[in-house]
């Protein structure tokens, strides 16, 4: 059984991430993590597959990612008990159409860019509780699908502000099991919505930072762990501006984070790739989780990581109505690979 301490769910018998896969687009492939992707798509419109819309393209990205993840785990989609999936599109469109193809029991999840930690956390809870043996946590975003929904048409010649972030074209999938080999999920902290009245849709890092700080502090308070207990504390997509604000705030709270890294700054080479303040999108932290975090925990290079995904929960409607942007952050604590631990004993 799991123990609940404040907002954190600590697993007595930690479920494991048994397999994972990441699929990325061209720009993600050109970034520092390019070689670590399981598959890179050359044409993110999937025109060769007869795809006619960006919404469909994002769904194909998810389907490719799921197929790779299940192949690595050596199971077929018919053996899956449950899938938690989400993306950036309204009504979780890409995930719905993916699941139309895959036919698994499915619960759609919308947490904007926080979706990867949210689906992973939910999957871990279900696995630990014994509700499902094979659970998929699947998340994606697609630059073109997000631009047309949240901003302007792709061919519109507008200028981005320096605080704007670049929505990643990427998908990440994790298979979670209650036991066996894999990277253990030690605890999950579902975040609370935080809103410090940021209204600038081009500065999401600033909008999400208070939520990230709040969840990190909630986790430390519940577990009495500190930053020094971790090889890395990762936030989803605060970007350069949000990361700087997070450091400032955590210092102010007397809890500096020297080992903090941000997925939005890891996915791209910010100085070279013209992504302004860094990457964002639900696929950003998903891709970094599956290309960097989980492989390092499996190899034993890292022993313990606090992985957060951060989401900005506004809609196009509330933004235009002048509402501020609510932020959320969920944290998943990951340990080093089970086999690795046994070998060390």
């Amino acid at each position: 059984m799991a123990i609940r301490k404040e907002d954190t769910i600590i697993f007595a018998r930690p479920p494991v991430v048994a397999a994972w896969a990441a699929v990325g687009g061209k720009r993600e492939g050109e970034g520092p993590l390019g070689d670590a992707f399981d598959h890179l798509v050359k044409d993110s419109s999937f025109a060769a597959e007869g795809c006619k819309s960006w919404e469909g393209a994002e769904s194909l990205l998810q389907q490719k990612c799921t197929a790779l993840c299940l192949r690595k785990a050596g199971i077929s989609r018919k053996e899956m008990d449950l899938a938690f999936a989400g993306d950036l599109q309204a009504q979780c469109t890409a995930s719905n159409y993916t699941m139309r193809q895959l036919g698994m029991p499915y619960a759609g999840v919308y947490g904007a860019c926080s979706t990867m930690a949210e689906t992973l956390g939910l999957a871990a809870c279900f696995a630990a509780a014994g509700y499902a043996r094979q659970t998929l946590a699947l998340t994606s975003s697609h630059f073109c699908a997000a631009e047309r929904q949240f901003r302007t048409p792709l061919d519109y010649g507008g200028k981005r502000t320096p605080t704007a972030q670049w929505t990643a074209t990427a998908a990440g999938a994790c298979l979670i099991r209650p036991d066996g080999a894999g990277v253990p999920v030690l605890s999950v902290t579902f975040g609370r919505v935080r809103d410090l009245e940021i209204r600038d849709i081009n500065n999401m890092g600033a909008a999400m930072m208070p939520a990230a700080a709040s969840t990190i502090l909630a986790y430390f308070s519940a577990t009495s762990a500190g930053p020094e207990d971790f090889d890395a504390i990762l936030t989803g997509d605060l970007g350069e501006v949000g990361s700087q604000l997070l450091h400032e705030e955590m210092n102010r709270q007397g809890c500096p984070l020297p080992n903090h890294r941000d997925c939005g700054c890891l996915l791209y080479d910010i100085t070279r790739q013209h992504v302004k303040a860094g990457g964002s999108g639900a696929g950003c932290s998903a891709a970094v989780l599956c290309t960097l975090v989980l492989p390092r925990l499996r190899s034993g290079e890292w022993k313990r990581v606090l992985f957060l995904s951060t989401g900005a929960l506004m809609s196009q409607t509330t933004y235009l109505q002048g509402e501020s942007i609510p932020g959320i952050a969920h944290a998943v604590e990951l340990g080093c690979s089970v086999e690795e631990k046994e070998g060390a004993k």
Partner: protein
Amino acid sequence: MKLDPKQYNKMVRRAAPRSPVLKDCLWAFFVGGTICLLGEGLRNLYLIWYDQELAGTLTSISLIFLAAVCTMLGWYQKLGAKAGAGSLVPITGFANSVVSPAVEFKAEGWVTGVGARIFAIAGPVIAFGTLASWVWGFLYWAMNKG
């Protein structure tokens, strides 16, 4: 030690990098200037065969056509990302703002996609432009009366 919105707003303003104003202005000046120079060149060319009024109209049509083609090839977006107002303000920017949603929303059908959303960006300019011309028209009429 909770942050309040006012305090946070100050923190965000300090942390946010500023736009490189001089570089942006130079880009806007030279790209905008080049588009206007192209227009002037075209007008002089048309003046060889046509009168002033027709040459002016033909120049506008040519610039709109060129901008539409560049938009469809994805070039105008690349230019706009650097030039900002330099490519936004001339008539070519207006063409870009009409063609880009037309291309984008074709997937949603000719009527409900292209037709309904073609003026998604240019619409406010047309609406308030019409309102402004109505106001100025009235003032002009009132001044002539007096």
